[in-house]
């Protein structure tokens, strides 16, 4: 929806197809326990509809006008800052209505072929042909690893009514968010819950990123430490067998110790996969258990030109992975900006010349620092999206807008330009980083972090002015009067 909207606003002719009957198909089904992991904070000091508000709103699609931004705040009932599943669904419907988004619903993609430079889609509504096709088909098909007997286990999404798990011993295979979501949901009912997978669980509050189990689902940890009703194991699962009255689960710990569990239920929270149909046969390389397509920083398949991706599949493009932290492209607050950048990229590939407004020399430092403090693209896509300003002897100073940082770093077109990002190293507060491309080399300058997240201080101006000395007079670091 975000990409179709952004393409429309740029005047790029396109067709948007959806197998669903209405907007928000995925959110008519997931999450299982009916409330999102991502928040929309109602009271921020900024009005919904402002760019500044988007930093605190992880769920709305990003419109160009205030009336199309921050819509989730208007559909939530205020009982939680995590929207319920129906609220998320309503927010997407509202965006579609307000923006008069043109989508052909009930049209199923069935097959794909290349015909010269074109990609041809066979759909339930006939053939569509285009030089570039963007697939935004989600990562929501449950996946099971080839563990003997795992076919007996219920999958995320196949659970019985929650009350039927009362007083039962439940073995959950998988220790990521879906496993802990199920464990959290069953905590008030189950007699015992065992969560197992080979690797130790990371927590988002420790990684300072979306990597790891989110704080909302941490309660089973506390139970495991304080009460013993939950067992959390680092172990590989060797097999699952049906018994007369339940299941026999055999595991081997990472210390090579075999263990046996007799339980009443086994649930496979073993992740999700990407429904790419025949794209792998055409040459799209995929990786990982989710079968994500390997993508460039502009979300094009690295192995098949003309095939692009949008939405949560964008997590296949991890970016620089600075300090091990990937992009936030798997979540709405990350991929809504990817889609906007992708729309501009596709418009340029079609021959459009996009507006790059001129910017006065004394506006450069305030603009970059304000972006670091409030720019939602930088906040949500750390080390991935950057605000770029280029300096030209003949054309002056141009605002290049928001671009993938890797594109800036590795593209000679930006020699004579600067980019600002927000970054995190996983243990300190986040901080702005300025990259300056000059004479064929890239220089990186870390600006100071700030406990109030204010990156517009005198110190920030001075440090940024120093980094920009190849392009700007140091006197421009002074605040304007």
């Amino acid at each position, binding site marked *: 929806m975000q990409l179709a909207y952004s393409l429309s606003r740029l005047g790029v002719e396109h067709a948007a197809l959806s197998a669903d009957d209405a907007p928000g198909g995925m959110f008519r089904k997931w999450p299982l326990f009916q409330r999102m992991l991502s928040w929309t904070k109602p009271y921020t000091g900024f009005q919904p509809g402002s760019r500044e508000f988007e930093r605190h709103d992880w769920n709305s699609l990003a419109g160009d006008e205030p009336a199309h931004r921050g819509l989730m705040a208007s559909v939530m009932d205020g009982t939680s800052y995590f929207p319920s599943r129906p609220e998320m669904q309503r927010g997407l419907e509202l965006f579609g209505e307000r923006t008069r988004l043109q989508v052909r619903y009930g049209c199923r993609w069935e097959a794909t072929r290349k015909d010269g430079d074109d990609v041809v889609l066979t759909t339930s509504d006939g053939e569509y042909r285009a030089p570039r096709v963007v697939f935004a088909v989600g990562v929501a098909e449950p996946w099971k*690893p*080839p563990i003997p007997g795992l076919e007996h286990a219920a999958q995320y999404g196949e659970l019985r009514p929650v009350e039927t798990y009362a007083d039962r011993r439940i073995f959950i295979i998988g220790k990521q968010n879906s496993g802990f979501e199920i464990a959290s949901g069953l905590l008030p009912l189950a007699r015992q819950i065992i969560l197992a*997978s*080979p*690797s*130790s669980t990371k927590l988002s509050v420790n990684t300072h990123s979306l990597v790891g189990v989110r704080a909302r689902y941490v309660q089973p940890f506390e139970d495991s430490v304080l009460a013993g009703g939950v067992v959390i194991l*680092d*172990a*590989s699962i060797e097999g699952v067998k049906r018994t007369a009255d339940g299941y026999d689960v055999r595991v*081997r*710990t*990472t210390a*090579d110790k075999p263990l046996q569990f007799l339980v009443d239920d086994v649930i496979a929270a073993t992740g999700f996969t990407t429904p790419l149909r025949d794209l792998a046969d055409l040459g799209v*390389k995929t*990786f*990982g*258990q989710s079968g994500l397509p*390997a993508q*460039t920083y502009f979300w094009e398949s*690295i*192995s098949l030109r003309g095939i692009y991706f949008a939405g949560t599949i964008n997590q296949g493009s*991890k970016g*620089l*992975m*600075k*300090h*091990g*932290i*990937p992009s936030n492209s798997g979540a709405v607050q990350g991929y809504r900006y990817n889609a906007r950048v992708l729309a501009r990229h596709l418009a340029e590939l079609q021959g459009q010349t996009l507006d790059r407004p001129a910017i006065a020399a004394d506006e450069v430092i305030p603009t970059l620092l304000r972006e670091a403090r409030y720019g939602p693209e930088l906040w949500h896509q750390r*080390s991935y999206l950057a605000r770029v300003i280029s300096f030209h002897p003949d054309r002056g100073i141009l605002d290049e807008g928001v671009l993938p940082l*890797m594109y800036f*770093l*590795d593209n000679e077109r930006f020699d004579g330009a600067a980019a600002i990002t927000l*970054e995190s*190293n*996983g*243990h300190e507060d986040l901080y702005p980083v300025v990259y300056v491309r000059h004479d064929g080399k*890239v220089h*990186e300058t*870390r600006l100071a972090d700030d406990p109030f997240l204010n990156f517009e201080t005198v110190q920030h101006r001075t440090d940024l002015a120093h980094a920009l000395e190849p392009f700007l007079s140091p006197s421009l670091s002074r605040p304007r009067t």
Partner: protein
Amino acid sequence: MAGQELADTIAGFALFADLSTPQREQVVDVFSEQWFGDGEKVLRQGLSGSGLYVVLDGAAAIRIDGVDRATLRAGDYFGEISCLLGEAPTADIVAMGSLRCLVLSSSQVESFLKSNPSVMYRLLQGEARKVRTTTKWLS
């Protein structure tokens, strides 16, 4: 590629040769898998934020100041020096064709090596070979 298949693949790599099957599965779980397109930079000379990379498939050039110095292939690893020293990489690593790697962030390298001493020993052997090569080259 599913985790078990990856665990089998790395069984053939010197770095992980001493690990049991559950330990190799844990490696596959702790590391993440990443693809790079032809010509894409994996690490950038002088820029902060490294990681330990193990080549699964494909090849990569070690490029210093724009000059290719060596080629990395399946089973080779890179980035370990900048992780251990906490410094920026001293070379660009550039994919030669499609490149597939396992990646461990620099912040996790210490705890990973301490909890997998056999990998630490194998890595030390690799570093010793590099020192020996450099010493021969200097003499």
